[in-house]
């Protein structure tokens, strides 16, 4: 675990330290000015929240079919990271919106659906924490529901009338904007993988502890 975790954390840490320099050198957006710089730390966690929700759903489906604990550990870790990355997006978004839109929050399709998706994974964690034995199967079902919601969150800006930027903004970004964005995204992604290995390791060790307790009782 340390072989993977430490180098990943080191590279991610380096990217996080150097990203603000690149972001500072990126041009200002014409209508929003300085506050648009939040975008570089808002879009990557928001995108990773969606990807993590889908990943959690896929792994949960595999767990429901094969019933191997390792898939449950990965799904649990992915759900926790979905909540963490979602929280980052939910906090940085309103800070940007306050200046750009004049309000902290608006019950717009993208924002409302993102909040619902985030709450689905919060309920996943609550179920795992307080659900008792067998909650892992119920939680896996909940993760499938979360996964099914994710594409709607992404496409909501194109389907419904909204003030949130459309999905076409990111693919058409000029290089000056795109480079720092994808650089920051790489940092967020590497940190995601590093935290995932750490979280899975904890679950693996916990399972070993439980097994040893059972053995000592026999």
């Amino acid at each position, binding site marked *: 675990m340390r072989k993977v975790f430490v180098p990943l954390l080191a590279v991610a840490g380096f990217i996080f330290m150097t990203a603000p320099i690149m972001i500072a050198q990126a041009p200002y957006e014409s209508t929003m000015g300085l*506050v648009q710089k939040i975008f570089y730390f808002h879009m990557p966690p928001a995108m990773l929240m969606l990807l993590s929700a889908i990943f959690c759903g896929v792994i949960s489906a595999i767990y429901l079919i094969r019933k191997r604990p390792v898939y449950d550990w990965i799904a649990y870790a992915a759900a926790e990271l979905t909540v963490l990355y979602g929280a980052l997006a939910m906090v940085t978004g309103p*800070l940007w919106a306050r200046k750009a839109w004049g309000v902290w929050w608006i019950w717009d399709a993208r924002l409302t659906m993102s909040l619902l998706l985030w709450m689905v994974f919060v309920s996943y964690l609550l179920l795992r924490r307080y659900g008792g034995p067998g909650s892992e199967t119920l939680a896996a079902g909940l993760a499938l529901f979360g996964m099914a919601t994710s594409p709607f969150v992404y496409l909501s800006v194109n389907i419904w009338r909204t003030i949130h930027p459309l999905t076409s903004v990111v693919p058409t970004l000029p290089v000056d904007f795109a480079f720092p964005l994808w650089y920051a995204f790489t940092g967020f992604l590497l940190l995601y993988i590093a935290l995932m290995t750490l979280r899975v390791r904890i679950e693996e060790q916990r399972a070993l502890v439980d097994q040893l307790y059972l053995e000592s009782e026999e």
Partner: protein
Amino acid sequence: MKKLLLIVLLLANTLLVAQEPQSEFVPVKEVPASEQLPSAPLVITAYAFVWLAFAVYAWTMWRKLGKVEQELGALSAQISKPRTPRGDGGTRP
């Protein structure tokens, strides 16, 4: 009771009449400086929150892993320890 209600209504009406209504909106080219929301604190708060959240999460997980590994070590040592016979010389049931 009716009289009291009438007095209250009349007083409220007098207050409303006394207020000077705005007769026009005056346009300006730029929002006054006192009304402008500075961007820098919002940007700094967003970046600081992200770093802080990651630091707190990683630290919490690292501590959890340390505790579980410690528990695992103690349990393994306890299990691998040879079982000592009972002091009274009797056998286990």
